[in-house]
Structures are given as C-alpha cells and as structure tokens.
C-alpha cells in the first residue's frame, strides 16, 4: 500500500501545502508592495554604500 494513502488519513494533511502557498504569496505581495513604496532618497543612499566605503 502506498504511503500516500496513510498520509491522506492524517486529518487535514492536504491543507499543509495550501497554507504554505498562501503564507508565501501574502508575504511576497506585502514585501513587493512595500519595497516599491520605499523613498527614492533612502534607496539612493543604501545602494551607494558599497561604493562610498573607501
């Protein structure tokens, strides 16, 4: 008998991948939205950090 059969008997096992996908998508959307709302000024400052360190 396939292991998957026994796993499917664990209550609600199918929700695992769905929850994980949801967590990721929500997280991703928030990060992306927020990143694009960052002020240009601070981006300019941060992105020059490796160049202005000498």
């Amino acid at each position, binding site marked *: 008998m396939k*292991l998957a059969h026994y796993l499917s008997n664990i209550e609600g096992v199918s929700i695992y991948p769905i929850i994980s996908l949801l967590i990721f998508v929500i997280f991703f959307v928030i*990060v992306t939205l927020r990143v694009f709302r960052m002020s240009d000024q*601070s981006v300019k400052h941060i992105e020059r950090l*490796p160049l202005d360190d000498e």
Partner: protein
Amino acid sequence: MQLEKFTYDNKLSKLFAFATIFWGVTGMLIGLIAALQLAFPIVNLSDFFPYAAFGRLRPVHTNAVIFAFVGNGFFTAVYYSLPRLLKTSMWSEKLGKFHFWGWQLIIVAAAITLMMGFTQAKEYAELEWPIDIAIAVVWVAFGINMLGTILNRRERHLYVAIWFYLGSWVTVAMLHIVNSMAMPVNLFKSYSMYAGVQDALVQWWYGHNAVAFFLTTPYLGLMYYFLPKAAERPVYSYRLSIVHFWSLIFLYIWAGPHHLLYTSIPEWAQSLGTVFSIMLLLPSWGGMLNGLFTLRGAWDKVRETPLLKFFVVGVTSYGMATFEGPMLSLKNVNAISHYSDWTVAHVHIGALGWNGFMTFGMLYWLIPKLYNAKIYSQRLVNTHFWIGTLGIILYAIPLYVGAFRSYFMMKSFTPEGQLEYQFMDIVSAVLPYYVMRALGGGLYLAGFGLMVYNMYKTCKSGEFVEKEEAEAAPLAPNYQAPKNSFWHSVIERKPILLLVLSLIVVSIGGMVEIIPTYLVKSNIPTIASVKPYTPLELQGRDIYIREGCYNCHSQQVRPFRYEVARYGEYSKAGESVYDHPYQWGSKRTGPDLARIGGKYPDSWHFYHMLKPSDVVEKSIMPPYPHLFTDDVNIATTRSKIHAMRKVGVPYEKGYEATANDDLIDQAKKIVKSLKSADIEISESKEIIALIAYLQRLGTDIKAETAQNK
C-alpha cells in the same frame, strides 16, 4: 557630529583569500583524480592503497570544494566587505583568528577522516560527530563576530549583501544541527537519528539547502558587494534585491524533496518540492538580471577589464543553473536525470561557473587592492578566463550527452520484451564521455594555475596593506525614522530582528516538510517481514558505508518498467525503516543494489570484491583486497547494537551480550557456502560481513511475497 577614527584590518581577509586559493586548487585536483578514476579505474590504486578509492575520495572532493573553497571564499568576502559597509572594524580580531584557524583545522580533519573511512554516509554531511560539533562551535564564533560588528556599526542601514550573509549564517546553522543529529557508537562512528524515509527527507532538506545557503546566498551577498565595486556603479535595482532576498530564502527551503522524486517518499512531499522548485525560477532570475543589468551602459568596461568577464559568466552560469534546476524538478525530466551524470553536469555549471568564476572575479579585484599593486598581467587574466570557460563547456557537454545516451540504453527493450542492454554495456558506452569530462576539468584547473602564478607575481610587486585608516560619524543615539518611513526600513536597521525573521521564514518550510514525516512514523505501512539487520549484516553495512559504496550505487528502485525489469520490485517506504542512515544514494555509476540479495551466490560476491573486472568484464569498479585481509572488529558489535536500539531499532533487551554469538554463527554459514565453491577463508574477515549484508538487501520483501503466494 564629531568624526571617529578607526581602522580596517586586512589580515584576515588576506588569510581567507589565500586559503580559498589553496583549498580551491586542492579540492579541484582531488576532483580531477576522481574523474580519472571513473575513466581509468587503475587510478584508484586500491590494490595496495585502500584510502583513496573513488568511494572515499569523492566525498573529500565535494566537501573540499563546498566547505573549503567556497566556504573560505564566503569568509573572505565577509571579512572584507562587512566592516566597510558598516564603517567600523571587525568586532573581534581574536574571534576572527579562531574562526580562521578553526575552519582550516576542520578541513584538514575532514580530509583525513574521510579518507580513513569515518563517515556518516549522508552527502555533504559525511563528517563524523566530533567534527560536526567543531563546525557548530566555529560557525557560532563566526556569527558572534558578524553580529558584534553589526551592533557596533556607524552606518544605520544594512546593505543587502549583509542580509544575505546573515540569512545564510542562520540557515546553515539550523540545517547543520538538525541533519547531523546522530547517536555516537564511539569517537569515530555514529548512526543517524533518522531512518529511511525520514532520513532521506531530512538529508535532502539539508542537502538541497547546502546548495542554497552555502553555495548560493553567501555568493549573492558577494555579488551584491563586489560586482558594483568592480563595475564602479551601484546595483541595477536595490528594490529588486530586497524582493530577491526574501523570496529566495522563503522558497529555497522547500525545494529539497525534488531530490527524491519517484522514490518511496510521500507523494505530497514530492509535489511540494516540485512546485516550490519551479517558483524558485523567478527570484533566481530576478537576481541574475539584477547582477547583469548592473553592467548596463558599462559593457565597454567588460572589454577593458578582464576580471569583469568572470562576473558576467559567473552570473550567467547562475542563471543557467537556476533555470536547469526547476526543469530537473519536473517529474518527467527528473525521471531521466536522477541517478545520472546530468545531475553531475548541472552542479558543475553551478560550482565551476557560478562559485568558481565569482571567486576568481572577487580575488582578481581584491588581491591587488590588499597589496596596493596592479595585476601583474591582464593578459593572463584573459587567458585564464577563456581556458576556464572552455573547461566548463568541455566538462558539462559530454556529461549531458552521456546521460541521455545511458537513459535511452537503460529503457530500451527488445521486441520480445527483454532489456536490450546489460548495465555494463551502458557503462562502457559512457566511458568516453568520462574521459572528455576529465579533460574539461583539467583545463579548468590549468586556468586556476595561471591565476595562482599571476597573483603570486602581483603580491610580489606590491606591499601588503595591513591596516587602512578610515573615519566616520557614530550613529546618532536618538534616531527618529522619517515620517511615513517604510516599515521594512525598521527591519533593515535592526539586525537581530532581521536575523529572527529570516530564521522564522526558513524554518516554516522545514517544519511543514519534516513534521509530517514524524507523523508518518506512526502511519508507516509496516511490512511484517522487514526485520532489523543481524549483527553480522550490521557490521557489513558499516563496511559498505565506510567504503562509500553509496557514491556509485543506489538502493532505491523507482516504479518504472525498465527499472523493475532490471533490478526487481520497486522500493517501498516500509523497507528502510531500520536504515540508520538511509542508503538510497543519488547516482548510479554502478547498478542499483536494493534487490541484490540472493541474486548471485556468495562466491560471486567474493570474487567480485576481490577483482570486479574478473567477474564482470570491463567493470570500472575498483577492487577491495583489504577486505580479505582485515578482520571485522567484533568488539564494536555491543555498542553498535546498543546505539541502534537507542535510535529506535527494536533489538531485544540484553541482545548486546549474545549478538556476537549470532554473528559468528552466521559467518560460519557463509564460510561453509564459500567452501562448497572451493574458497578457503577465515570467518573473521571483513568480506564475510559484507557478503552477509549484500545478500540481505531486498530479501525481506521477497520473503513476504513468497509467504503470500
């Protein structure tokens, strides 16, 4: 605000840079020897020297390249860039020195113990438990030094490279600790806490993320610092780099099960691995494009500055490997690539192209800087670049071709329904590709040699700059973030928060994948006829592990017609419940052994281990003559049984005391069966134990089938 004076100490960056070069050459040389061993078995030298046969040397190569070459490369980048990005000195020079010497000592210990056969037999996590503990200690010291530096910084914002460094550090710590959990038998031997399906899942959760968080994310940090430096312009999109970071670490941690497609792990875990692997393409390519676009409008510079070429091909290789990876995670593609040389070619695009070339690019930029000198010869840099690139192509293409050739031969049936080719026919067919691969690797190493010479001359022409003076204002004590400031900038200013958040992000994936495997334990379809190994078989299994047989032989038959016809019934999860560690393998240079038990008589194995090519014509397996002269150390049986019971194998209470009686009885039986084939050998020899183990493999389920009939 008053400016404070401080210094950047270059000593540790220099030490790590030299260690990178030294271990790079060593690790690749060992790789070249291993490649030659496959092409020309005589190079195994195992007739008179058992320590350097392929099964023991291959882990030395992989560990050296991953942890010694790339590891030291990562540390070079951190010790150079971290203080400069934060405008402060490294927190503790002493801790840095401890980190440096501790790491080098671990590498030496690793090389020696692996060649001696002390191994946990889990890929890229082979090192035995005392070394595992040493790694954890040194790794923590490194982390403390990084955090201390960050807390003492004079720059409020943490540049994205630092996020990659921190994320890598915390994830590697978690992976290393969880995967290395083992029950010691003695100082040099331990058994994995996990067995079978669980062990496989934990191992590839680790194994895949060793690639992700040791070979990829640290080097992305390196890319985000050194590429803008070398190109003298900021990264293409800083915003993209943030999205790159979070989505990459979030997705990577889930992808492990794609190493176990079509094996006996649960279907849902396989699907999860596939889905996340495919999603990984997006952040990976986002990062690659971010790197390449950094050179926008500066491509003329690439022509004039040969070291930039290394970055371009390095980042392009990253793009190629991260495109190939998701494709290999599709089940139908994986059916072809798994166990084949395709995987080997794939990882070398990553190792030689991405890690190798990024390291070279960094060192060509950094070493002249450290020595206040100009590169001795730009022409040599250029030559190195072309030789290296040609080496990568010559390495990979033959293996791709060979992998497809062997696949088509493996699955070919005659019109009568018989397998058309013997396994040995297939090995012989791919042998010429192994020769070409060794040539490619040799070429790449020759290019590395040019760099060693070039850098030696460069160092001689300049003088080492031990300390660089710098000054910066301290952080204002009562910082008020500007109004409407992005919440993310809070994380960015708080390193501990960043660390904790990354740990949460990476542990979600790990937990969702691994916790159900514990549930599996109580739900596993136990097969009544699967019993623990007998003491002699257990000793034989440890010999199998010591010789690194898993480097060329799998023990996992996939449910395909051409595999079942060749090897026997496909593998079931319940069959490996007592396998601490699991031995499913990941590459078939030789045939699968999951059902080898009972297939041949004892005498076949006897002669085969003595000289494989006498039994199987043209075999490329090395001989193991020492198994016929060395005795099994039966003094260890007691503690081995004890340790096995501790990790959950149901040996009866008190069995330790009588285990050796059973061991000798079984050995006598094998000696008797050998005698009937006119072979005289003492029952105490290692070969007897190994035969016992091999003859046991896959027989449990055969017994059950017989019972059911």
